[in-house]
Structures are given as C-alpha cells and as structure tokens.
C-alpha cells in the first residue's frame, strides 16, 4: 500500500466517523461542528483525487459558508433541547430491512460493474485546465447555475420578508 492509499483510508475513516458522530448529536451546534470536520476531510480527499480547486471550493463554500449559515440559524433561534428519541423502537424492523437491502444492492453494484478493481492513477487537474474545460464545454450550464443562485437569493429574501 502506497502512502497515498494510506492517506485515503485514514481520511475516509475520519470522515465517516465524524459524520456518524454528527448525525447522532442532540445538540445542534455540536452536530454542525462535527460536520465541519467531515467536510475538511472531504476536501483532503478531493485533493488526493487530483482536484485542488474543488478542494478549496469545498472548504470555502461547504465548511465556510453553508455550515456558518446553519450555525447562524441554530444560534438565532433559541432551541430548547428537546427530548427527541433518536431511534424509535417501533421503526427498528423496517429500518433494518431497508438497510440490509441497501447494503446488498450496493455491494452487488460495486462488485458487479466491470472496471471497479482498477487502481486509480495519480493525476492532477490544475485550476487552469479545469477552468478552460468548464468554460469551453459547459459554459451554458454555468449560466443556468448562476440564474439558479439568483432565484435562490430572491426566494430567501421574499421568505424573510413574509410575516
């Protein structure tokens, strides 16, 4: 196992552990902070897979903007710590059935698809190559996405003004 492979397994274990801790917290602030750790790990994974620009975007947008927005809402609204049952006992059977089906189907898909056993090469898409590709081949989608962001801004403003 190479050094890259060791880093991959280490960081993936960290990401999965941080996410699993985050989704079981009752305190919302703790959950958000654990998710920030998870998103930092995801950024390192992106860097390992040769996408340094996306790693930077992941840190800035996901861990920086989106999670801080969550923190704002959690702190703006005073939440009483509710006595929330994290896992109701009556739903244990359906959850187990669907979880087992999901695991079986995922393993079948991963092992059944040809070519998944190929090792990934070390290859880096520099931000310059990435930008050239995006604006040469996908420029229309970029325009549509910017329109979507504008619509989201208008919608959030309108919802904030409603009484």
């Amino acid at each position, binding site marked *: 196992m190479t050094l890259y492979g060791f880093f991959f397994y280490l960081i993936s274990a960290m990401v999965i552990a941080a996410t699993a801790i985050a*989704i079981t917290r009752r305190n919302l602030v703790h959950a958000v902070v654990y998710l920030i750790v998870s998103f930092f790990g995801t950024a390192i994974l992106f860097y390992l897979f040769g996408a340094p620009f996306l790693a930077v975007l992941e840190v800035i947008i996901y861990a920086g903007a989106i999670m801080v927005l969550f923190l704002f809402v959690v702190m703006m609204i005073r939440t009483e710590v509710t006595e929330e049952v994290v896992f109701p006992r009556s739903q244990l059977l359906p959850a187990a059935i669907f979880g087992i089906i999901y695991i079986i189907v995922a393993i079948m898909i991963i092992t059944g698809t040809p070519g998944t056993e190929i090792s990934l090469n070390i290859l880096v898409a520099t931000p310059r190559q990435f930008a050239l590709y995006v604006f040469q081949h996908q420029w229309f989608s970029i325009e549509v996405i910017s329109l979507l962001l504008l619509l989201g801004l208008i919608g959030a403003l309108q919802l904030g003004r409603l009484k």
Partner: protein
Amino acid sequence: MIVPFSNVLAVAGILFALGVFCSVVRRNLIMIVLGIEIMLNAVSIAFVGASLRWNNLDGQTFVLFILAVAATEVSVGLAIIVYAFRRTGSFDPGNFNLLR
C-alpha cells in the same frame, strides 16, 4: 496508484447511507437539511473519484454544479425553516399541522 475505484464508491455509499439515516430518523428540520447536505457531499466524492477513473473532467464540473445547488437549497431551506418556526414555534415536522 492510489486505491481501487471500488473503495471510493464504498466510502461514498457509506456516507450516503449516513445522510439518508440522518434525514429519515431525526425529528428536527435542521437535522433533516443537514442529512441532505451529507448526501450531496457523498455524491460529490463519487463524482470526483469517477472523474479520476476515466480521466474526464466532466465529473469535477458536476461537483461544481452540486456546490451551487447545495448553496441555493440551504439558503431557501433555512429561510423556510425560520418562517415555519415563527409560525408554529417548533422545529418538529409533526407540529406543522395547520391544515388539519
């Protein structure tokens, strides 16, 4: 050589399952939106891995779109959550029964 592609898919699948668990099981609107974020994040990992597997930058482009969609969804979703909290004073989706 880093790792086989199947391991990347396995990590993405585990993260996606955690996101589904979070948004199905938790009875709190903010945790439900957080679960959707985890799912989008897992999909981005799969996309970047596939982009490296086929040496094609389309996967990374899709991650860019996923980031934009996630930002929009979170801003509008949190605005809706704050509005619903003002109307009902609760985060529990079971309390949103004004139509009943």
